[in-house]
């Protein structure tokens, strides 16, 4: 019984962390069609922003939930103005440019913080379930992810800004003809995507030892989740995150963590063979 609960928590946590690391990419790649290979580095910078802020004496939750997304969002803004805006619609070129950016970011962060492992402790204590100890921070991550998904849904579906953004991503020429500036809208959307990546890095920072090259560990999973999710942004993210998270955790508990990772990748291969356009091209069609 206790074990069942612990496994359930780990399952939810795995799903949540997959969604968390993919949310920013879902906006930048899923919506804007920019293959952002620097996504992992945006996350890494979110982590460093949090650690720096905490070391300066700022409350860890403020640092994670407000400061890190803002800082990474602003970095994203600069990157968008200087590099990305010249490359919209040129899929392969964005890939090359953002790969270069990722190397630049790794280099810069190495210069500033040094190439050593840094980190902060988790702000939430573990607690006991029957005879088991559970990491209390897992619940915090699950809550953050629920909030992020609801927020994305609310903004995209409920606000005029979300509607305009979605419209611009589909037909920027029409949006332009209707009097909206696609340039501005792309800029704002990229800011939001970067901020989400920063948030993900920040929230995960207390769980890992952070090095400037940490971003590389997330990039593959983030792309798999977003691509397998398909055209619907939030639903796709949720669906593929749940599928992969549950799959890998099942095999992790049943066999070993390595097999869990393998299962995730094999699952992705099968899924994309059966549903090349992603889960939401067939199920939950038309949802956001």
């Amino acid at each position: 019984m206790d074990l069942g609960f612990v496994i359930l928590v780990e399952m939810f946590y795995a799903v949540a962390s997959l969604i968390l690391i993919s949310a920013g990419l879902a906006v930048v790649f899923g919506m804007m069609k920019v293959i952002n290979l620097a996504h992992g580095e945006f996350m890494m910078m979110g982590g460093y922003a949090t650690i720096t802020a905490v070391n300066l004496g700022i409350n860890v939750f403020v640092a994670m939930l407000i400061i890190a997304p803002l800082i990474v969002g602003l970095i994203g803004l600069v990157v968008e103005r200087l590099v990305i805006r010249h490359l919209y619609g040129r899929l392969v070129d964005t890939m090359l440019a953002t790969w270069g950016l990722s190397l630049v970011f790794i280099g810069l962060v190495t210069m500033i913080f040094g190439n050593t492992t840094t980190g902060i402790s988790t702000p939430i204590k573990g607690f006991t379930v029957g005879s088991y100890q559970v990491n209390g921070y897992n619940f915090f991550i699950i809550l953050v992810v629920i909030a992020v998904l609801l927020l994305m849904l609310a903004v995209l579906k409920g606000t005029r800004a979300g509607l305009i953004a979605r419209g611009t991503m589909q037909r920027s020429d029409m949006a332009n003809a209707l009097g909206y500036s696609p340039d501005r809208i792309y800029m704002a959307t990229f800011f939001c995507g970067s901020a989400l990546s920063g948030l993900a890095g920040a929230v995960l920072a207390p769980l890992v030892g952070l090095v400037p090259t940490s971003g590389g560990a997330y990039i593959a999973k983030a792309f798999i989740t977003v691509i397998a999710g398909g055209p619907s942004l939030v639903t796709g993210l949720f669906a593929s995150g749940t599928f992969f998270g549950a799959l890998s955790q099942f095999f992790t508990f049943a066999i070993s963590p390595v097999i869990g990772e393998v299962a995730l990748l094999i699952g992705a291969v099968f899924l994309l063979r059966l549903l090349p356009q992603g889960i939401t091209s067939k199920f939950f069609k038309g949802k956001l």
Partner: protein
Amino acid sequence: MTVNRRTFLGGTAALTATAAFLPTVTLAGDTIKLGSILDTSGVFDAYGKPMDMAMRLAVSEINAAGGLLGKQVEVKAYDTQSDMALYSQYGQQLTRQDEVDVVHGGILSASREAIRQTMRKTNTPYFYNVLYEGGVCDRNIFINGVTPAQQVEALVPYAMGKSGKKVYVLAADYNYGQIMARWIEKFVKENGGEIVGLDFFPLDVADFGSTIAKIQTAAPDLVIAPLVGGAHLSFFRQWAAAGMKDRIPLASTTMGVGNEHKVLTPEEGNGIMVAYNYSQELDTPANNAFKERWAAAYGDSNSIHELAVSNYQGVLTWAEGVRQAGSLDREALFTALESGLSIDGPAGKVTVDPKTHHAILDVHLMEIENQGMKVIETLPQRQPVDTQSVCDLSANPDDNTQYEIDI
């Protein structure tokens, strides 16, 4: 000697090229070339950077004292960027292009095996100065890191004595972790314990949530973790975050060799049991003097760690060998090193074991306390008996195997 047009042109071109690209190069024969091959960037740089600093400190001290055989020692260093593929490339470059007189380096066991055969084929003496899983039997290599018999054999009974008989092992998934896990199993069984769980993790795994739940299902008395690199450090953090640290004691064969205990907070690190050759907290005249020299060269002595000291002692051992041999000749050097040569390093006396080319050295049982390693017990001059039991280079000089332990 006749100079035809072709040799003249070739020679001039080579000279010009050399002068253009390497303005400080001196003519061959004026210096002794020491090749160094380490990960000074990337995920393993926490190990490699201080090792590089230690090597350079040792070389500058040798040079300041007049060099070796009246020549200065010149460093040829390559950064392998934590990429195993670069080891074979730079290994070739060091031996065939730079034609160095000795190579020090390699960090992960995978990297050692990537270059060991190149060194052997080109007759370049190779010093691997890192604690490792033991068993390498090759006359061309000298190893001064602690092996399982020196480390695990001491650590396991101590840790089990403080906890209990049921042990769970979490190891890195490559040759080091795989072989270490078997050594741990052997010593746990010899001490009347049992292994209740064993998991291997690729080097980039950073999420240990499910593993921590699994460990609790197995309910061990002790967890031993030969985990490697920055990503695996997350385990110790997540273990503490889940509140497990005060419930099940932890021991590790690698934690702290790259100063990981200084990254963890005291709450996360305190109480982890380890056993190494070196600790910054060793209060000996040799270590205090070493820390002062290091601080004079690099500002402060915080970055010194086990592997850095091993690398420093490796360079000293080689230098002493060259001095006693009176030449750079490989056979003369090996004969000198095999004569039971020893040096006094920051971590005490280190003697080359002639039969195995491993080291006889002091091992300290320690516990992490407030980001330092508190010495609990010192085990003086331990022999590498694991490798000695399978390897005898004086009887069998052509051996070229890494013996693995059978259970």
